[in-house]
């Protein structure tokens, strides 16, 4: 499977990249054409992602498939190396799936305001100002970079796109607000650029610390292997064969450098504070892009790079990371309960969920890590559903404050219904996809660290609290003055929401396609880390993906309870 004449992985990233350029080049007057063009390219990317998923053979030999490898910068030991494992396939599919919805949901978000285009003082030069084209081009650019960072098996290549994606993200956050600020456009613009700068500085600082570690990695490999390399496979092989030995101190420092960047991106408490700002101030499609797509690169990279490059240091840091993840879970949920702003509430809920994901990754059990991977996918879908519906709601009323809403379900029942399903998915209701992943993570954690598993389950209770209170306050009760006459979901909006909800239901009942793809990759990761599940007799490990995970998990819980 290694040799494909057609570079499928490159193509999957190249299509949105070309789309970005093409969209940006559309003349200012033809806004609608730009939108359709962007949608078309994002759909083409999705088709390619599906092809990847179909071509991918879960049981095949070797950690990576569909690999491509070309020389790039020999002086730095950098190769253009792509390859996917099951985890990457799932996340690429998620990304390619969500982007068309993001584009559709943001269909009118970047249209210039009528008033603004009239009042522009520099009238003549304004014809070159093309916000709509820019908005969709930037989304596609982010998509291209995210996909490449999921595909890269060269640490340097990954780093480049990990860092470079900050720039389009930054413009998306800072340049396009949701026009729902309570204090007028000027203050909203100030808050927006504050959020954008905060986003960028946090992530850039993380990235630069990682750069130091990347350089350190090169220095060590150059020192011990003769020539420096960034190839993940080569380094892992050299490690297992004993040719490469980082030394305990160096390995820990390098691990910390990498982990810091990923923890900022993920985000993990206490490095999370940029997320509520960024998600609160940006338009809801961009907020979905941040939390459902871009942040996944952080947790993905923990699995792919932190654990595989530095297994010993990962074990060393596990206790601290688990505690931080636990704090994320509880703290994020508590702050979500206290929020008055719908989007910030969802942001804190995401922090809580990322805590679960990191918990699952560093529990170092099969259930934990498959759960974490499923969680990444499910969280992406459920947050997208909730956030996009919230965005539709906010656009209608022009306010993000929960207190401004009430009785929406009487006026716009479909909107309220989809919002409820998105919310129920967020609180991991059984029958919806996130339940399975959350349960797997908790069981995986519990089997190794019972106390942490128990405390983390408090997060579920709190999730129920913040979601249901949010629903109760906005959707039920007497109809507020400005909510009256609120239109229900339009056709475009239904097209966005309905497939996401269908997917949540489908994966909630039948997650096997996903687990089949993911489990071998998780086993591989764990074998590199040299961790075995605490109870070897657990059946779910022996036959990856066989049967219903929930069922198998149940057995284990019973065992653990004895």
């Amino acid at each position, binding site marked *: 499977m290694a040799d494909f004449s057609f570079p499928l992985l490159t193509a999957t990233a190249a299509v949105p990249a070309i789309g970005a350029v093409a969209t940006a080049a559309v003349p200012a007057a033809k806004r609608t054409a730009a939108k359709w063009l962007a949608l078309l390219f994002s759909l083409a990317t999705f088709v390619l992602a599906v092809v990847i998923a179909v071509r991918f053979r879960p049981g095949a030999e070797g950690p990576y498939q569909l690999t491509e490898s070309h020389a790039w910068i020999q002086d*730095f030991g950098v190769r253009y190396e792509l390859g996917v494992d099951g985890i990457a396939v799932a996340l690429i599919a998620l990304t390619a799936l969500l982007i068309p919805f993001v584009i559709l949901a943001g269909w009118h978000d970047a249209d210039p305001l009528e008033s603004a285009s009239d009042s522009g*003082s520099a009238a003549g030069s304004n014809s*070159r100002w*093309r916000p709509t084209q820019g908005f969709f081009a930037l989304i596609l650019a982010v998509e291209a970079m995210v996909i490449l960072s999921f595909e890269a098996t060269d640490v340097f290549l990954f780093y*480049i796109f990990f860092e470079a994606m900050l720039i389009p993200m930054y413009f998306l956050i800072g340049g396009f607000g949701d026009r729902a600020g309570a204090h007028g456009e000027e203050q909203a613009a100030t808050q927006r650029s504050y959020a954008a700068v905060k986003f960028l500085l946090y992530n850039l600082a993380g990235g630069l610390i990682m750069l130091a570690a990347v*350089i350190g990695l090169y*220095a060590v490999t150059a020192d011990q292997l003769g020539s420096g390399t960034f190839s993940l496979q080569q380094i892992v092989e050299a490690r297992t064969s004993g040719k490469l030995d980082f030394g305990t101190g160096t390995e820990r420092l390098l691990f910390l450098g990498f982990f810091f960047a990923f923890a900022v991106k993920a985000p993990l408490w206490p490095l999370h504070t940029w997320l509520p700002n960024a998600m609160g101030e940006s338009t809801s499609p961009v907020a979905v892009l941040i939390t459902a797509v871009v942040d996944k690169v952080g947790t993905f990279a923990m699995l792919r790079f932190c654990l595989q490059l530095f297994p010993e240091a990962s074990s060393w840091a596990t206790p601290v990371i688990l505690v931080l993840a636990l704090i994320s879970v509880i703290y994020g949920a508590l702050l979500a309960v206290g929020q008055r702003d719908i989007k910030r509430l969802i942001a804190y809920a995401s922090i809580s969920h990322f805590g679960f994901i990191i918990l699952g990754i560093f529990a170092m059990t099969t259930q934990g890590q498959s759960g974490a991977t499923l969680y990444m996918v499910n969280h992406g879908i459920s947050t997208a559903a909730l956030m996009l519906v919230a965005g539709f709601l906010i656009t209608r009323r022009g306010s993000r404050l929960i207190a401004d809403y009430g009785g929406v379900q009487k006026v716009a029942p479909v909107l309220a219904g989809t919002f409820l399903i998105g919310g129920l998915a967020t609180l991991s209701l059984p029958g919806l996809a996130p339940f399975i992943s959350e349960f797997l993570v908790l069981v995986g954690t519990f089997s190794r660290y019972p106390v942490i598993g128990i405390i983390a389950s408090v997060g579920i209770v709190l999730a129920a609290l913040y979601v249901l209170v949010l629903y109760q306050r906005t959707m039920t009760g007497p109809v507020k003055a400005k909510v009256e006459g609120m239109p229900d979901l339009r056709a475009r909006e239904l097209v966005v929401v309905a497939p996401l909800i269908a997917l949540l239901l489908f994966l909630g009942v039948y997650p096997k396609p996903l687990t089949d793809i993911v489990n071998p990759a998780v086993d591989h990761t764990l074998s590199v880390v040299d961790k075995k599940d605490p109870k070897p007799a657990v059946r779910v490990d022996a036959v990856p993906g066989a049967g219903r995970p929930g069922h198998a998990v149940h057995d284990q819980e019973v065992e653990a309870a004895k």
Partner: protein
Amino acid sequence: MSSVASVHSLWTVAAELPGKIPAPRIEYGQLSPTLIVLGAAVVGVLIEALLPRRSRYYAQLLVSVVALAAAFAAVIGLAAGGFGSSKAGIAAMGAIAVDGPALFLQGTILLVSLVAVFTFAERRLDPAAHGNRVDSFAAQAAAVPGGEAEQAAVKAGFTTTEVFPIVLFAIGGMLVFPAANDLLTLFIALEVFSLPLYILCAVARRQRLLSQESAMKYFLLGAFSSAFLLFGIALLYGYAGTVTYAGIAEVIADGAKQIDPALAGTMGNDALLLIGAALVLMGLLFKVGAVPFHMWTPDVYQGAPTPVTGFMAAATKVAAFGALLRLLYVVLPGMRWDWRPVMWGVAIVTMLGGAIVAITQTDIKRLLAYSSIAHAGFILAGVIATSEDGISSVLFYLAAYSFVTLGAFAVVTLVRDAGGEATHLSKWAGLGRRSPLVAAVFAVFLLAFAGIPLTSGFAGKFAVFKAAAQSGAGWLVVVGVISSAIAAFFYIRVIVLMFFSEPKAEGPTVAVPSPLTTMAIAVGVVVTLALGLAPQYFLDLAGQAGVFVR
């Protein structure tokens, strides 16, 4: 011979020196880049003297461009002829080294200068004075600012076309500076490029007092640093009994073999070596703009005409780092355990100092000045590596950085209001809405400065940090990335200002430049992206150039 001696033997004694003063053998071919540029400078002076005022501008521009292109072709020819690698050697009686680093740096300086000359020649930006197109330089530099003579000169449509030969002289000096193979040549080259720069700084058309002040500061501080350098040279001569690089290195390595009777008391005295080396280094660090010898940078960058600032920031840095590299790698490798800790300290305070102070700046030119200080720190991190990788990474960084700088300053010349260039940051608010293209180009340069991947700045930064890390300077790299993060903040702030702030009603306009500046900026963008996306070819080039001749 003997007969001649015998005839005059009554009142003369035959000198027995002919063997000691060999007829100087000058390798004209190997020195051709420098000779072409200096020759063109002389031609430029003649043009000023002989041609009518109307045709001077075109003649000067033609001569400059042709000379720089020819000199660059000569450099390429020498490199292709193997003078960068196998045939590398010493020319001009041991005064000039013709080797890989020298040719690479000369090529870089010439290309940068060529682009800079385009920005010098730009005549569309300033509004026409009495129907005459004018450039960034004073109508008559000697006229008192605001005085009658100045008004008359403006009215007559004078322009200071002398800047072309002056800049050619400066370029000539810069070509010699990194190739100098003895300390006296080093000093002369320093003066040859510094003196024209002092003049160039003083001849701005707008804000002439600021410009003259900057030239004065630059001159005074430059004179100080020259004095340090000269004193250091004297002490090193006292220590080694020679000013050639190889000779000094030999004495450092093996001790003085033949004690010159005149220097019997000083030769081999380590105190002289240490103080002398420190003073010479100070002189070079001044030109590089490293903390704590950076005081002149912001004022001079701000006051000088922007094309000159761009030229200075790019070309001077290349030349000065070239000389610094040669000095540290050829003369002082034997005492690297002495200078490395000091240079560590200098690199750290330069990186952090430049980045931190830049945050508070409100003028775009001053901001770029402090950013250039921070970048000097990053380059020093590569210099300290003392390895072949160190040399090649510094060469690559210099090439990458100089084009970004030049492009950035060229953009600065475009943003104007009634008082000339609008350099105050607040005036840049909303530039992205008024002219998205210019703002986007400037954003590319800023991102390259910040070292964002896929730009040349990242490749350069990675190269120097890699070299530093491999030489065991891991903590220097950590400080480097921390100051990169700090520096990113103020680059980003400018981007925020351009794109996310509402344009002000009475804000500046973006002038439409002639093809000259457009080309300069385009070259900057192309090089920035090319070195970012596919740096391998240039890394190879720098890698092949990575060996000094001794």
